[in-house]
């Protein structure tokens, strides 16, 4: 079974703090993704990575950056947290290439509150 783990289930941070969200997958997947999930808006893609050290912006990258130094780990960074970044953050991974492009494996999510 693919397992995607996220470093925290709940996180409370103050406005202006630098926030790191960590994601680890254990199935040697090439592709990894960061989404945020908000009521009525569904999942929106923040950043994704096709491979180590490669990253591309998703639909809502403003205010976020990412890091992928190792294949199994993908980090989301909020450089200066703001209250409008309060959300559920979901990490996902996919095998890569042309294999099962429709299937992503998700972590349990991190609920971030910025006060």
């Amino acid at each position, binding site marked *: 079974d693919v397992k995607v783990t996220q470093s925290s289930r709940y996180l409370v941070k103050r406005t202006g703090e630098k926030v790191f969200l960590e994601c680890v997958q254990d199935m040697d997947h090439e*592709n990894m993704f960061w989404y945020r999930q908000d009521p009525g808006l*569904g999942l929106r893609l923040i950043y994704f990575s096709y491979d180590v050290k490669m990253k591309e912006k998703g639909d809502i990258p403003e205010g976020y950056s990412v890091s992928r130094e190792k294949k199994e780990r993908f980090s989301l960074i909020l450089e200066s947290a703001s209250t409008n970044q309060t959300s559920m953050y979901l990490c996902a991974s996919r095998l890569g290439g042309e294999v099962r492009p*429709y299937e992503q494996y998700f972590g349990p999510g991190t609920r971030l509150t910025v006060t």
Partner: protein
Amino acid sequence: QKEVEQDPGPLSVPEGAIVSLNCTYSNSAFQYFMWYRQYSRKGPELLMYTYSSGNKEDGRFTAQVDKSSKYISLFIRDSQPSDSATYLCAMSADRTTDSWGKLQFGAGTQVVVTP
């Protein structure tokens, strides 16, 4: 206008009823059509996928895609309380596009099956 539209519900049905969910979309390049299920405090997991148009059945679940109308549906027969979850439609274009490997999600419909 969002690329994928989905009514967020909630949709409440009695046990044993048929649950009918649907999404509409605007991007004619979408070729993969998925339904993900998300239980409370969990990440989404793939339930079913369909490539291009047509129907697909898996046990009590039936997925339908009508590309001419840009409309997809998911039916759950003989619904059970354990089917209570949020159901997200997702779509993806094929490998000839820049968005290959990325998914566009609907807002998700919350379904509650009451005993």
